[in-house]
């Protein structure tokens, strides 16, 4: 069984198949940016990208992930250590408070921006619906995603 995480290919023994992706990421790979808030796939803090789609890692078993490409929050920053424009936008817009939802929130937003280069605020709200935040009221998070879209895809016109 092969699973790629943040560009690194991991070969796994077959008896690992029942292990939860979230536990494997946190405990075996030390990728602690993936958080566990509810353990039942409702809060979104464990969100990762699987082939560019936002998924809840606390619900997935490794056996479901054969040959998949997984991106965690640790895989976003540029090779030189600088922040991804989406991460930078979260910083600049004051979108971070306690930070526990932040990794999942960033990844859900990234999944949106990969397929929709100029989302409306309503579309951003829809895309983040699965990620709970108790601190921010979401508003500055939505500001951040809007700003990141402008930075990432400056040539795109606003879609109506």
């Amino acid at each position, binding site marked *: 069984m092969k699973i790629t995480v943040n560009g690194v290919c991991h070969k796994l023994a077959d008896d690992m198949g029942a292990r939860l992706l979230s536990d494997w990421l*946190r405990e075996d790979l030390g*990728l*602690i*940016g*993936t*958080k*566990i*808030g*509810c*353990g*039942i796939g*409702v*809060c979104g*803090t464990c969100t990762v990208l699987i082939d560019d789609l936002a998924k809840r890692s606390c619900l997935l078993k490794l056996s479901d992930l054969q040959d998949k490409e997984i991106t*965690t*929050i*640790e895989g*976003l*920053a540029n090779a030189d250590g600088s*922040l991804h424009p989406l*991460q930078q936008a*979260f*910083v*600049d*817009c*004051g979108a*971070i*408070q*306690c*930070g*526990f*939802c*932040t*990794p999942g929130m*960033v990844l859900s937003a990234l999944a949106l921006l990969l397929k929709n280069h100029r989302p409306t*605020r309503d579309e*951003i*709200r*829809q895309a*983040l*619906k*699965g*990620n*709970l*935040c*108790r*601190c*921010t*009221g*979401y*508003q*500055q*998070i*939505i500001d951040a995603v809007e700003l990141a879209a402008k930075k990432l895809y400056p040539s795109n016109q606003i879609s109506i």
Partner: protein
Amino acid sequence: MKKAFRNDAIAKVTGRAKYTDDYSMPGMLHALPLHADRSSAMIRKIDVSKAAKMPGVLRIITAEDVPGEIKYGQIIRDYPVLAHKKIRSSGDVLALVVAQTRAEALCALKEIKIDLKETPGLYDPHQALLPDAPLIHPEHGSNICNYHRVRTGDIATGEKDADFIIEENFSTSRVEHAYLEPESALAHLRPDGVMEVIGSMQHPFSTRRFVAATLGFELKDVEVRTVPMGGGFGGKDDTAALVCARAALCAYLCERPVKITYSREMSMKESYKRHPYDISYRMGVKRDGGISFVQVRMVADSGAYCSVTPWVTWRSTVQCSGCYEVPHVHSDVYGVYTNNIFTGAFRGFGSPQVNWAIEQLVEIAAEKIGMDEVEFRQKNMLKQGSVTVTNQKLDSHTVSLKEVMDKVLTEIDYNKKHELCSFGDPSLDKWYGIGFAISYRGMSLGAEGVDMNSAIINVQPDGSVLLESGVHENGQGSESAMILIAAEELGLPVSRIRYRMPSTSNIPDGGTTVASRGTLMGGGATTKAAEILKSIISEAVKDHMGKSVDRFEDGWILDDQDQRICSWDEAIRLCYSKQIYPYAFGVFQAPRVSWDEDTGHGDAYFTWVYGCQAVELEVEPKTGKITILNMVAAHDVGRAINPDMVKGQFYGGMTMGAGYGLIEEMPLREGAVTATNFHQYKILRSTDLPEMTAIIVENPDPLSPSKAKGIGEPTLEITAPAIANAVYRATGRRYTDQPIKIRRDSEDNG
């Protein structure tokens, strides 16, 4: 655009920030609690024989193993670290399983056999008040956990003066904090004999007291260190501190590092909630619009333990008549023990309950005399120099109630939109409503307790600065606020200042980071420390360079002719070369407050903040669905240290407050929570909210060294009544029980 500042933003946005559960230690064990899951019983026997033989299990710990105090508490010591002989709450922990892995501990929990005798429980605080009710804590002598009152003027006179007397009952719900990070703690006994603890808790010093009491240690032998915390909102005090104490207990008994990380289910089962209140008001009004008296009785369900109920209900007592001048006031406020899951600190702390009621009541009163609700509020509201119902004169700061109200009503265009309200018009398939609420709020702890804080500024030989204060980073950005205050005072860029993660062994106990007091008290101490430091440096410059320092700016020390004397770094080098430490310890003590328990009179808080929020919404008559269309808030914060973070408090508070009004309610069955995760206990999501407008009002407070006050709680405490008032104008019906559940006409006939 000025960018937001947070010292921890990069660590959090890259996933590198390490919360408690992200830490591990060599040889670390895992422990988990067994909850009682029933609310009233006598424990006959806890049989661990089978569980102890389960794979990976090292030890099973019960109350008999506790070397120190079994029960502890911040006010009344009634909260057991492990239940002993008696179960009073479904959240009681009967045993702790310590195992090699968390999974093994989880398996073994199921094999512990409990032999107990269930006893009748008390689940209604009004029944608990009856004379023949069994006592939850016989040693307390009563089920009344505490009682506060206000006696101002004379109600009989107020009744005589009244043209109308309005009587109304209100109730508020039991609410889950729903911080996204469940409780977690990691403890180990250091070789020097100190029990070191990190944990997801919002009061390191309170946690240290819980740990020390449980182990029978002195405070010097426990060191609590802080790591990033995934939300608290008042909810990570007692329970979170006990989780730390239990981890320490396990580490002490097993002589290995032990981590306890709760599942969401464990967290919701055990952690305290917001107090539900039953509130009965009588209000007298005169035809000219004046309020002649307020008489109110409040019963707050404390659940099985005291926690901070006396302090929560005290705030309700002080603010029992809302932000209005009332000549005759008679209030009785009870905190009552039951076998329900217990209640404690929660953002707002006794004010959201009162505001839910009083901000509807004033509108009912206004309507009764045919006055509009804006004019009625203007007539009765506290103004500069007003005297509060507890006999406190508001003259030390700007009383900006009218200013915040005017700003909100103008921004939302209240008068015009008021005419569009549907009032339940049966010809419409969507009802529109607009509503608002106002409040005042006493800042910091007030006469609740000792109110001081300290800060240490320790300049290093290279001119870089280590700063710490007795304030805890709950996620709100308090460290960033402290850094910004120090940077401004010292004339340095924020990059030169590092906030040192404090430890309880390094800085004096600064009290809990609650009551919206972080920026006020910690910022006050930081300002004081910076002033002391500047005088130390100025004296060194005067003595050794012969020049008088006027100010510190942009990394330079300047004289009063705007001439640079030397750079900051040169001044620091000078200090060290002359054997002077550029080190300062600053203290801010809250100005004097007072309280008389008998009359309910006193200068309850040394300063106050003022706020107004308005809401537009739509109600679907067929489904009862409420959609919020717009929310606007104005709050006087004194001075905004970090405006983007202040706005974050606005948006977050309004969102939490909207959830409180609309959906949030922790259901109980015989005292035990029946919603144990986020699929059952719902909080608002991004799609449930409109765009919000935050209006920051700044009237610098003379009694605050940094001129800042607070913002965490005011933002939450008036959203729900603003919604209720808007729902009234949409539906034509008053909803006095919270959360609001729209009645449909068909239900009325049933």
